[in-house]
């Protein structure tokens, strides 16, 4: 009676490893507890002890083999006196996890997981403000059901001048000034979406959307489910989120984790002008409610935006803004810029940081983050919002669940201080993440 010896797992999350060395050879007697081989992952080496007794009849995986999936038969053990035929053993049941894992031999798992942005060809410099306006105008031209609703969006051209020119082009039926009545106009837009229109709701800031959060969650996010799939809600809620400059605590809050918590919503947070245009077009086309978190400070920043008429970015895909090998820095919205500044400082100090621009928070592109951390073995998440139950907490947990064994240091969070945002310029600066906070966090890990 022969027994197969299987590739063991070093940890619950290990899916494959290298068979580093055989300590027994064919014909050797094996006693229970004998060390028969050494297994390596990029994190650890483990000795494989025999459970059963017998004679090592056949070695199925030679030493030095990489990417051996957990539970793959690696050797055959024969009972004392038994002869083992030379025929190959029955194929093992496929291990589903191992099958999905990238081969360790593949040189760059990051490249496979996070395909670089499609090349959209020529670009033109635009501000985030212009990119957002163009995205709305393009989608409004393409679909007569799309309309913009909010305070000051029409006659005044937007409190932050995002909707410049839209009233002139589309008229008051499709660019609608609302009274200051967030809860009702939000519910009204949700009702319109349920009945066949495709509203874009502009909140003057997301701080004011707290007045309307009941309709956003209880009506927009939940009705499709509660109605058994009858009533969808294709709607975009957009506006500036997070801190601006010296506007005080009630106008300076990041709502990313609030909305990202809720099934039924998608949550998007652009950083660059290209992000703004490509993601807003995707959000308007999406048949689900999308929370689109802009940032007031970014509105005036200029970036290169593809001029291709079909340019759009997928919701749920992150972008590696800067490649690196020593640490993964994950950020979204304005903090992408802060993270890139930190990466430059780190580069001067000999630390190669990879910076991921999340773009979407729900769905979160866990695949890209995990692939990066498997390469760098270190994670620092950066957000402007508060730490408790924040986006960084979720990202850290995703890493713990998905690639704990690849970590060389505990994941770290950089975040806004756990206080309402102060008004005074010096205090405000002390409360919001700066590049050196990120640099210091990274240096504790490398």
């Amino acid at each position, binding site marked *: 009676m022969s027994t197969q010896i299987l590739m063991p797992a070093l940890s619950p999350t290990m899916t494959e490893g290298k068979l580093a060395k055989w300590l027994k050879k064919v014909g050797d007697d094996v006693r229970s507890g004998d060390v028969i081989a050494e297994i390596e992952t990029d994190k650890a080496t483990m000795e494989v002890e025999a459970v059963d007794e017998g004679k090592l009849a056949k070695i199925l995986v030679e030493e030095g083999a990489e990417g051996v999936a957990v539970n793959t038969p690696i050797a055959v053990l024969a009972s004392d006196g038994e002869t083992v035929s030379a025929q190959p053993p029955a194929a093992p049941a496929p291990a589903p996890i191992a099958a999905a894992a990238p081969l360790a031999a593949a040189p760059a798992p990051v490249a496979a997981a996070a395909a670089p942005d499609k090349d959209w060809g020529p670009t033109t410099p635009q501000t985030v403000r212009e990119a957002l306006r163009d995205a709305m105008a393009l989608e409004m031209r393409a679909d007569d059901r799309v309309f913009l609703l909010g305070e000051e969006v029409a006659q005044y051209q937007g409190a932050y001048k995002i909707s410049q020119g839209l009233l002139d082009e589309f008229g008051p039926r499709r660019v609608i000034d609302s009274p200051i009545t967030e809860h009702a106009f939000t519910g009204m837009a949700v009702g319109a979406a349920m009945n066949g229109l495709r509203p874009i709701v502009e909140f003057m800031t997301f701080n004011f959307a707290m007045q309307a959060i009941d309709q956003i969650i209880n009506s927009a996010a939940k009705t499709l489910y*509660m109605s058994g799939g*009858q009533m969808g809600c294709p709607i975009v809620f957009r506006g500036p989120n997070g801190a601006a400059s010296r506007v005080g605590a009630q106008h300076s809050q990041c709502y990313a984790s609030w909305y990202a918590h809720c099934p039924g919503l998608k949550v998007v947070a652009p950083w660059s002008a290209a992000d703004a245009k490509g993601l807003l077009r995707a959000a308007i086309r999406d048949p689900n409610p999308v929370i689109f978190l802009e940032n007031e400070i970014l509105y005036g920043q200029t970036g290169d935006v593809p001029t291709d008429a079909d340019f759009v970015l997928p919701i749920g895909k992150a972008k590696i803004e800067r490649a690196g090998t020593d640490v993964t820095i994950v950020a979204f919205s304005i903090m992408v810029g802060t993270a890139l500044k930190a990466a430059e400082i780190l580069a001067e100090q000999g630390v190669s940081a990879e910076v991921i621009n999340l773009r979407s928070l729900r769905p979160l592109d866990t695949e890209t983050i995990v692939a990066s951390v498997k390469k760098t073995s270190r994670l620092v998440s950066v957000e402007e919002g508060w730490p408790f139950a924040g986006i960084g907490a979720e990202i850290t947990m995703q890493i713990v669940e998905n690639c704990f064994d690849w970590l060389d240091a505990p994941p770290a969070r950089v975040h806004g201080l756990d206080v309402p945002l102060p008004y005074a310029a010096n205090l405000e600066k002390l409360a919001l993440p700066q590049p050196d906070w990120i640099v210091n966090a990274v240096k504790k890990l490398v």
Partner: protein
Amino acid sequence: MQLNREQLLAAYRMMRTIRDFEDRVHTEFSAGGIPGFVHLYAGEEASAVGICMNLDERDKIASTHRGHGHCIAKGCDVDGMMGEIFGKSNGLCGGKGGSMHIADLSKGMMGANGIVGGGPPLICGAALTAKTLKTGGVAVAFMGDGASNQGTTMESFNLAKAWNLPVIFVVEDNGYAESTGSNWSVSGTQLGRAAGFGIPAVQVDGLDFFAIYDAAHEAVERARNGGGPSLIHGKLNRYYGHFEGDAMTYRGEGEVEMLRRDHDPLNFFRKRVTEAGLLEAAQLDEIDATVQAEIDASVVKAKGAAMPVASKLLTDVYVSY
């Protein structure tokens, strides 16, 4: 407004269906057969039916947590409703909504709503859609006296008037917001509030199907003809508690018994049409019998229906595309 015999029979049949449906849900709930929270509409039937008989397939309604009557009056399938309340796979929402979230958009019923005051803004959206797409449809928000105190309601009054939306706000004032008396909790009057927004409003006796029907007819005509929003304030009564299980300690001794005896909208209707010679008592008796049988059948179907399959647990969170 003179209704023909068919319309009168339909009105009675609908009111009887609501009454029997609610009485039966009450019984089944007491027997432990219904898994969740229910709020019954018995006693208020004339309102839902008087309003909805003025509506057609273009029109939308938004309901409340006390939504069964509105559903039936707008044409929702009784078997599907009973199945939903039992949490079964044959429910209108596949058992994923329950009593407080029954919806059938194909009938223009945008849903009961577990949030007091949740409906008025949504119905303004239905009205905006009708106006934008020029469907000719109108939209009705049912609400209780409790919801009339919510900011969303008054914000919706303002938006409906500011944008001249084809909306009818129907305040179903049964005297109690849960257990809180509307006699002290509603400042001013419903008519005065509407007047403050420049919205035409009328108060009607919720007992009287005909008064409600006429008020709704006028409001619907106004809305369809571009005249903007209206408000109807119905004073009516509920026979059961705020929810099933409510001991109703806040109600006067003998109050409900007196209402059932002297202020019942079905008895009122029967008396009115038979005394006027519009319908025969026997015709109404026949409806009573057939409706009873239909409700019995709906309960049998609901009890016999399968539970929702577990694979539905994770569907309908997002529209895939």
